[in-house]
């Protein structure tokens, strides 16, 4: 199931300067009951975004029209907790194509890469600069350049490079996924399995 190709993304960003944002906040468990991958964006950050009666919480960033864009900038240790891919689906379905943080939880990061959302890990200093820049001007744009593996604050031109392994980078650039690859080496897998003890 190929996904959107990712090359260069230039967009304003939505700031969420909270640490340890866990996947139960990104998508609470009670919204995991679907059997299809649709509509998860409606419940992204559900309990931070809405009151119990469904009315929006005015002080939450997604309800503030000042901030918008295809990039979500989170605090340190973003995506900790559960392995639910629904968290990455919710981020994608809401319209984000990249998440920026100074530190990502492992499974969330992998899930993002598997569905075509780019996790961009920056230094704590650069993360602070991004938050400060958006604070000063909510229309601040970021440029995420996957071929060059750089993220740039457009207002000041400050730039930092980020890591991604060559295989995943190629997948993201071309919209390939792991299952396509695994299918292509299936014979090798079968002969490997034949030699295992169990």
């Amino acid at each position, binding site marked *: 199931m190929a996904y959107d190709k990712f090359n260069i993304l230039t967009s304003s960003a939505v700031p969420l300067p909270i640490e340890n944002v866990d996947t139960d906040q990104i998508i609470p*468990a009670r919204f995991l009951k679907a059997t299809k991958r649709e509509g998860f964006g409606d419940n992204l950050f559900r309990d931070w975004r809405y009151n119990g009666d469904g009315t929006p919480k005015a002080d939450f960033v997604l309800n503030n029209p000042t901030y918008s864009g295809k990039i979500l900038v989170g605090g340190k240790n973003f995506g900790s907790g559960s392995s639910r*891919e629904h968290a990455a689906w919710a981020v994608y379905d809401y319209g984000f194509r990249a998440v920026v943080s100074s530190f990502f939880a492992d499974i969330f990061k992998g899930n993002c890469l598997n569905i075509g959302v780019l996790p961009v890990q920056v230094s704590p200093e650069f993360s602070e600069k991004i938050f400060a820049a958006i604070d000063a001007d909510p229309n601040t744009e970021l440029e995420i350049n996957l071929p060059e593996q750089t993220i740039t604050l457009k207002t000041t031109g400050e730039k930092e490079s980020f890591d991604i392994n060559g295989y995943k980078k190629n997948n993201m650039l071309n919209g390939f996924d792991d299952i396509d690859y695994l299918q292509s080496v299936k014979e090798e897998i*079968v002969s*490997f399995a034949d030699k295992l003890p*169990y």
Partner: protein
Amino acid sequence: MSKTLFDKVWDSHVVRKIEDGPDVFFIDRHFIHEVTSPVAFLGLKSRGVSVLYPERTFATADHNTPTINQHLPVEDALSANQLKALETNATEYGISHWGLGHQKNGIVHVVGPENGITLPGATIVCGDSHTSTHGAFGAIAFGIGTSEVEMVLSTQCIMQPKPKKMRINVNGKLSKGVTPKDVALYIISKLTTSGGTGYFVEYAGNVFEEMTMEGRMTVCNLSIEMGARGGMIAPDQTTFDFLEGRLYAPKGEAWTKAVEYWKTLKTDADATFDAELNFNAEDIEPMITYGTNPGMGIGISKHIPSANEVEGGEETYKKSLAYMGFHEDDVMIGKPIDYVFLGSCTNGRIEDFRAFASIVKGRKKADNVTAWLVPGSHIVEAQIKEEGILDILTEAGFVLRQPGCSACLAMNDDKVPAGKYAVSTSNRNFEGRQGPGSRTLLASPIMAAAAAVTGKLTDPRDLL
């Protein structure tokens, strides 16, 4: 070349290495449940591929299941639909299915080990982060996303870069009233919820060697809460004794051969780790969490730290305490509580019920406490009855529910109301984890029992 336990199991499952990329990693055993598998099956259909090795995947329903009246139709339509989808998919692809009502049904991380599906040296995955539990047997076991569930179904492999290696040694003598849960919560409080990220942990030292399999499962289960993908413990006689005779465990000559192999599964004396940490058993006391992540834990006799004593930003810390309705420097002992939850893949095994019963025996449930006692499986439930534990619980005013994940993540009706405090033997105290607005205090089964009979946070050592 010297290898760690982790290296030995990992390296023997690499089908191929990709330059500047992940390994194609073979999975021996795959567990699925109703929440994270439906979309993976849809993926198979849209690609027109089948399940490569249906006999390597095991389905059980747990996340959504009600814990009372399991013989009746599931009332929540969405939950019922997910449970039905699991059954339909399992049947269509020839996968073993222990659905609601099946005598083998229970929480995936409880039923796998108790039926001998979990074996030393195996690679095990499930679309659930607490798959790390199975590492207690010397398996490499970790949680995966739904895309990866589809990969395993279709090719029995995932694409995974090899994690770094960490060894956590705990040596010494645990004090009375200090349980495996406390050991794990103590380690997480030292490492924080991100301290293990990027690593796979091996637990070593006499404290783990002397633990029962149930205790080891509790510890490995919580590995993910320090950010580690998983944790494992070298298999030994305790492991073999637990597994022998279980449904899927090898039998006869195959058993002898397997044990011979399993005995080689230990870290070589001169093997090295990317990180190594040492803790003293004597420093650990019964633990309780006070905040909104499992790293925010302290000894029950301690005060809540002030913002400047903890790592991380002050704003996040204060937000967390405000959610909990707590303040810096608060004393934990004596805080009133409303709910007690005994259960989950962390502490829903027979030993946990024995421990809980040992405290409540001859005492009464406090009137202000609602208690949910949820066994991890039907096998655990049966054992609770056989051992006379049910009688003790009933005498003390408790009711035993039916197996499932229950209030650990509150996908079913077992939800803690907003603003209420729950002492919970589960694994996560995130905001709203046990129901919107719920406030969770993670603790061991005996701490939960002490709270259940006193109606407030109580040092369980006072009731031993």
